[in-house]
């Protein structure tokens, strides 16, 4: 998993509440055998004018010019600004997979659905909860100034706006640790790899038959 310490990125405002995971990545794309490659189909139904199916050449599909992700000024955005209850609906981990694949690294919203919130951390995405009034102000500033950027410092738990305003945010310390260090569950477990090896050695000396390679 990618570590997340600081980020200075373009902000894209997605101005609607209750954005659900089916909107983030529609169900027809779950047949994939991959965990990556969902980026082109992120928000598929909003982003394109036609109906998307797996296997289509997305570069040839007609884009919806009204959809915020398609606007020139937001190209290359890494921070997504959202409204209440972001990521509600099905538990699909494909939703954070799609956001991450597109290039989003942080999502700021007044509230997130639980499962989505958890899934983000497992995939190197930082979800940040801020008061609704602050989020509202960020929306306004984003609309008003072209190529509006925010700086996010996870270690200091601070967001800095272009005017130099500093906004503090909360994040639980264990998750912060994992994200700052770029540790997924696997990475965390591998911190104990010597312990695992030692256990394995003991086990092999007592129950050697578990270690004959498939009977050979």
């Amino acid at each position: 998993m990618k570590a997340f310490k600081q980020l200075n990125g373009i902000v894209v405002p997605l101005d609607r509440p209750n954005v659900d995971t089916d909107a983030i990545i529609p169900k027809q794309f779950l047949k994939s055998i991959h965990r990556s490659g969902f980026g082109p189909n992120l928000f598929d139904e909003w982003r394109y004018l036609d109906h998307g199916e797996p296997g289509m050449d997305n570069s040839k599909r007609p884009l919806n010019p009204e959809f915020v992700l398609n606007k020139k000024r937001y190209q290359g955005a890494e921070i997504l600004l959202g409204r209440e209850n972001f990521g509600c609906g099905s538990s699909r981990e494909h939703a954070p997979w799609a956001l991450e694949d597109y290039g989003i690294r942080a999502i700021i919203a007044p509230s997130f659905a639980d499962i989505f919130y958890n899934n983000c951390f497992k995939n190197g995405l930082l979800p940040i909860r801020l008061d609704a009034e602050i989020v509202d102000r960020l929306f306004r500033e984003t609309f008003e100034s072209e190529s509006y950027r925010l700086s996010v410092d996870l270690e200091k738990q601070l967001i800095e706006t272009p005017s130099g305003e500093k906004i503090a945010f909360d994040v639980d310390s264990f998750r912060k640790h994992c994200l700052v260090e770029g540790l997924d569950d696997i990475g965390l477990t591998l911190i104990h790899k010597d312990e695992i090896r030692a256990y394995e050695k003991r086990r092999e000396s007592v129950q050697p038959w578990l270690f004959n390679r498939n009977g050979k």
Partner: protein
Amino acid sequence: MKPRNLYDKLWESHVVRQEEDGTALLYIDRHLVHEVTSPQAFEGLRINGRTPWRQGSVLAVADHNVPTTGREAGIKDPISRLQVETLDSNCEHFGIEEFRMNDLRQGIVHVVGPEQGATLPGMTVVCGDSHTSTHGAFAALAFGIGTSEVEHVLATQCLIARKSKSMRISVEGKLSPGVTAKDVALYIIGKIGTAGGTGYAMEFSGNAIRSLSMEGRMTLCNMAIEAGARAGMVAVDEKTLDYVRGRPFSPKGEMFDAACRYWNTLKSDEGASFDSEVTIDAAEIRPQVTWGTSPEMVVPIDGSVPDPGKVADPVKRQGMEKALEYMGLKPDTKMEDIQVDKVFIGSCTNSRIEDLRAAAAIVRGRHVAGNVKLAMVVPGSGLVKHQAEEEGLDRIFIDAGFEWRDPGCSMCLAMNDDRLRPGERCASTSNRNFEGRQGPGGRTHLVSPELAAAAAVAGHFIDPGKLS
């Protein structure tokens, strides 16, 4: 030392590290892999530049998507084909042993593991599949995991887990003639409910369980998950050791003897305590058949469809009414009066050689009834199929009008071409009768192989003892 139960022993012997918050790093001895839940896990390894911790602990086989006819021609459905080919290439890339589709040893992962001796007593066994509980029949701690966990186990040989509570289900006394392990499983689920085992690891004990063959114990542990328990298990005895002896992956010679000395300790100590205990009188159990859309909706073969009108609890009543509507059944209909359209003998619950022998014994000299559109036998593995053919069971089935197929999950979950059409009623030896499980709108009745065979030749459910 405080007496410990079997689950305590299996758990404690696999803890690599215990955290203060109650989670533990649990060492995994055997990792079984199939094509549906593994592609993203392998991809995760690749993206992060990781390799499997111990390839020798992993055994892979494609089972869910494989066709059960004409497989020499390959898989027609492109999405299924891609999943199977992906497993092939992942195993090749990461140096993992795989039984490919046309290998004689290919079959349903939960049939293949024990058959090869890849499942041994005292192991932790995981697979990205809920019916991994099957392997608990060998006094192994076996449970299903998700795709992220598949990746975790591949990369670290461990799982982050929390100990469950323990439950002992003792089935005491003698099973009546004609009562099988499947009936015991369905009876238990009917008694404690599909959530009865939630949060527990279940040990099955008592002399009725001891009397079951290893294959019967596998059938029983397979269904533990349908009772809500992630793991089911049975203590080691002579039958366990006899089954394991001489299998391809089993230890040989002196090492086998040494292993047996350890394996013989894999039973609950005298006086060990459990968080919950259930005792069942074996004599109460009759052959079972489900009438609804959950395995707990079950009655004896000589019983009738229950009447929701007699149930006081409104939530339960509505659930029953909804199930009856889906199943197209009326209250108080005798189970033996219900006609079937299709019969499926197969799945990781009941597709082993003893299952096929039991079904063949009923089919022998009879013919599939005229109203039955399709009766199929799908052996659990290529080796089971081969053995059955050596014994001439295939002829018995084919002569009676059954289709004799190649091994795989098949109509248990209808991911390949084998499926029910809307409204079709099936006597099935599988484990889930959920809405749409065997095909959209399909109606599944769970039964033993004996009852499925009897339904095929009679055209309706019937106690095999009543067949003329």
